[in-house]
């Protein structure tokens, strides 16, 4: 076994990433020597902070092909999704009250849309195929005269499936409907350009791209069309009135730095993650039978592997690989005690959802970590299958779908 890996191993970069040390270094002075409030107009500390925020605004804008004035800072992707969707819904309520989304979105989008449903809006939930992708013709058919917003994510957080964002954006613009894209997982993993993709509103967060937690951004298009939002938070009129509250200057500097690093290094980062993810995938699929990859294999984030180990329950597998931090679609690991709603939306049987594990690679993972992880996972799955009555039945030739289970 490898001696050159430090335990525990962090392989849950889709949940959050460690900060890049360069990001931390950029942030530090803004806690201490440079304490200004970016809204203070009367002294050098305030001007200093305002200048730092504007630099960060440019850094974020440059990464996604926007202009600095189109970037709003806020607390993260959850707030960004809320402001984009509720803000547009309220602003354009006179035009219509119809929104289009999809059941595999993050809860920050789903529950926001559901809230609007209780407030008299109507939401069409586009179905997804077995890969987790919507069909463009379904989307075209769903758009009506009273449709004001389409909200679809760029990359799914559980399975990494990519939607065809450029085609969705083109369709929305052709039909005169606003397009909000939750790009939280896609930023830094695939090229995102709000002009080429015709995105009107884009949500992102710092803590998935090696920046700090508690800071995110919303891109709001200013031309063709100019998008207006009704604010959710009233107060001192910060961020052009769209998001009041003293700016989190260290966080914003960190988000800006994280974006600047990506602008320089993203392609190297992506290749690193893809190489490690593919290596892990090959080792796991070669080492075990009855494994299946969830989501799309062809249209997928380069750093993510969601895989089901049939006949082994996910939480028990997590226990067996306790030195490796990953997540599972098993009901036992969720607060709701339901298996992953994303995997269910793909039509995956619950049994395979219970058996699913998400590995998400990042900038700081190493090949040695991947090799160690593959060895440990293969051994743990084998051990648990020796203990699994389902695996035994399958070996005996029993068709599990024909068994009369005594469920509770």
């Amino acid at each position, binding site marked *: 076994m490898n001696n050159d890996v430090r335990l525990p191993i962090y392989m849950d970069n889709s949940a959050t990433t460690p900060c890049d040390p360069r990001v931390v270094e950029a942030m530090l002075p803004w806690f201490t020597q440079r304490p200004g409030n970016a809204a203070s107009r009367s002294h050098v500390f305030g001007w200093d902070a305002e200048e730092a925020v504007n630099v960060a605004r440019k850094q974020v804008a440059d990464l996604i092909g926007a202009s600095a004035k189109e970037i709003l800072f806020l607390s993260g992707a959850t707030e960004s999704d809320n402001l984009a969707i509720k803000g547009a819904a309220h602003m354009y309520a006179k035009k219509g009250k119809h929104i289009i989304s999809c059941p595999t979105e993050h809860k920050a989008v789903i529950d926001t849309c559901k809230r609007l449903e209780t407030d008299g809006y109507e939401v069409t939930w586009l179905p997804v195929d077995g890969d987790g992708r919507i069909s463009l013709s379904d989307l075209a058919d769903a758009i009506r005269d009273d449709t004001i917003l389409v909200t679809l994510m760029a990359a799914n957080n559980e399975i990494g499936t990519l939607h065809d964002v450029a085609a969705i954006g083109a369709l929305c613009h052709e039909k005169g409907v606003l397009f909000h894209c939750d790009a939280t997982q896609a930023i830094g993993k695939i090229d995102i350009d709000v002009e080429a993709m015709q995105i009107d509103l884009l949500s992102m967060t710092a803590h998935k791209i090696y920046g700090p937690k508690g800071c995110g951004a919303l891109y709001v298009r200013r031309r063709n069309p100019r998008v207006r939002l009704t604010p959710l938070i009233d107060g001192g009129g910060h961020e052009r009135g769209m998001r009041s509250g003293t700016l989190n200057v260290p966080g914003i500097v960190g988000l800006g730095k994280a974006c600047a690093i990506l602008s320089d290094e993203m392609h190297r980062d992506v290749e690193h993650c893809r190489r490690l993810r593919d290596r892990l995938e090959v080792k796991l699929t070669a080492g075990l039978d009855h494994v299946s990859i969830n989501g799309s294999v062809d249209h997928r984030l380069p750093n993510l592997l969601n895989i089901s180990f049939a*006949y*082994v*329950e996910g*939480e*028990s597998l997590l*226990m*067996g690989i306790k030195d490796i931090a990953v997540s599972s679609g*098993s*009901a*036992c*690991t969720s607060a709701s*005690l339901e*298996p992953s709603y994303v995997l269910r939306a793909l039509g995956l*049987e*619950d*049994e395979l959802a*219970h058996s699913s594990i998400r590995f998400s690679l990042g900038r700081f993972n190493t090949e040695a970590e991947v090799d160690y992880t593959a060895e440990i996972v293969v051994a743990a799955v084998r051990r648990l299958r*020796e*203990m*699994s*009555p*389902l*695996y*035994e039945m399958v070996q005996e030739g029993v068709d*599990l779908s024909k068994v009369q*289970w*005594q*469920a*509770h």
Partner: protein
Amino acid sequence: MAYSDKVIDHYNHPRNVGSLDKSSDNVGTGVVGAPECGDVMKLQIEVDPTTGTITDAKFKTYGCGSAIASSSLATEWVKGKTVDEALTITNKDIVEELSLPPVKIHCSVLAEDAIRSAIEDYKKKREATEQPQQAASE
């Protein structure tokens, strides 16, 4: 979720994993739960028909660590007991022994069901074999 030391111990060193010959008249087999619910337990007992004592027990479980621990503990507890004594084991005993949190109580319920179901299976088999014997001795 944090597991109790006892759950971790049973998970790492499960007692009595395996299978007994389910076609034997002295073996009772219980299979409870369902794959779509995330747990299936198979518990088997071997009984000495002259004394009614459970001489061996084995399990296989698909489920979380607490489900594995509950069934492992169940096999430990039933061994050496008579069939009727084994029926007095309740899920509460298992919850206490393993310090299971409320969300894991269903694992203990499943283990109790597995014991009952295995005993029921054994009793059915005995009835089936004893009747022809009685018929022969008449």
